[in-house]
């Protein structure tokens, strides 16, 4: 996990905060998918690497999720791993050449840093919200952020100001957004044997 390399070329040519946020949002949307469950449920996922979507365990319930990309195309996802204890799941997809997440360790996050979330709440696909890191993740598995999340954000990325994914949004607690840290995601993938295949 190498920290902090800007993945979005437009991040460096920003001419205003608003432009910076919208170009960052555009990039994050490309690595965010909408997951449609067999019983009509809707959540989000992150293209973690080629052929692999990471989402929440509570989103990947039941068999046969449809993975919808930001350009509207879709494929079927197969459940590759699921661990409710850390609220994570991985879906394998037959798709290559996708834009994939650049990952940053959450332990280096400082309170006050800007974070962005992209997801699919009921009233907006690829919806973006912005906020700040509420407190340092420390050795904990959860990032707390002062950001407005909605249920459909579950499984989607929480990213830093450079567009690096630091966690997977999973819950709302006392008005704060909670995300499973990228370290926890990596450990989950390692245990599931999904990391070596990269």
């Amino acid at each position, binding site marked *: 996990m190498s920290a902090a390399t800007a993945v979005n070329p437009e991040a460096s040519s920003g001419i205003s905060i608003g432009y910076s946020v919208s170009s*960052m949002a555009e990039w994050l949307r490309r690595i965010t998918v909408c997951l449609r469950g067999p019983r009509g449920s809707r959540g989000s996922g992150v293209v973690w690497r080629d052929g692999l979507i990471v989402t929440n365990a509570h989103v990947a319930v039941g068999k046969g999720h449809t993975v919808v990309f930001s350009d509207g195309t879709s494929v079927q996802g197969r459940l590759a791993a699921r661990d409710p204890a850390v609220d994570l799941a991985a879906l394998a997809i037959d798709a290559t050449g996708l834009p994939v997440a650049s990952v940053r360790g959450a332990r280096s996050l400082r309170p006050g840093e800007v974070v962005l979330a992209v997801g699919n709440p009921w009233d907006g696909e690829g919806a973006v919200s912005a906020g700040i890191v509420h407190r*340092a993740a420390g050795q904990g598995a959860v990032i707390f952020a002062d950001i407005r999340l909605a249920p459909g954000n579950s499984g989607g990325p929480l990213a830093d*100001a*450079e567009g690096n994914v630091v966690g997977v949004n999973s819950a709302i607690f006392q008005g*704060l957004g909670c995300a499973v840290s990228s370290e926890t995601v990596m450990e989950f993938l390692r245990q599931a044997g999904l990391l070596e295949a990269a």
Partner: protein
Amino acid sequence: MPGFLVDFSNELAEAVARAGRSVISVPEGGREGVSGTIWREGIAITAEHTIRGLDEVEVILPSGEKSKAAVAGRDHGTDIAVLKVAGAGVAATLADEGQARVGEIVLSIGRRRDEGLAATHGLISAIGGPWRTGQGARIDRWLRLDLNPFPGFSGGPVVNARGEVIGMATSGPRRSAATIPVSTVNRVVDQLLQRGRIARGYFGVGIQPVAFPEGTARELGIGSERGLLVVMVEPGGPAAHAGVLLGDIVVRVDGAELQGPQSLQGALDSDKIGQTVPVDLVRGGKLTSVSLVVGERPVR
């Protein structure tokens, strides 16, 4: 070259870190612990309502060290308690809150028992003039925040994007965050350090709001349809000395028409103690006036 968003992000993180050097944790405060702000060297403030009844509290300093802090004074009215914290860390950089502008980005910063610094962000959503708390204390400026309060934020600082403190955060009505601005905190801290409490003015009367019969106020040339009926006069008190009698109806104090018991509060601010104020009252159907020397409310 990093973009604006990265610069902005770094600025906010630095503001939190900079201000955080003056933020302490008060684990015994409130339900889950609250925060405090090192206001001057050796002096911290916290939200009074969260440490009621305690003469000494445990604090966690910015260094992570635990220490005991004596409660040097408390003011229920402004919700400020002063703690003595020797060798605690850096005193906060205070902003001139008069320079604050609507739309400015602000951060509410706290320190949590185990997790260290915590912050939420928002804006100054409105600025207004002086206001009074439910306890009657005068707050010099109304700073309305568009910001999510978080568990334990009370007593911590509200800072601008440069990390300079514009006030102390505390709970407002309806789960909002209220700000006690720097000027008010300074005034209250000065008084608490000098005397251990905030002096309040005192008339030595018991009052009851009453409405005049239709037309009476106009006949007497009073602006308000209401007055305050004196139902008790403390023997030897300021009102008794001024010649106020049981049954008098107070209609004007220091030139200000009374709208209700709250209207008296302005005449009871600590800076009025010892001053002579004219009190207009209705006695036996006639308007009359007495001169009252405002006393100091006894400590009970």
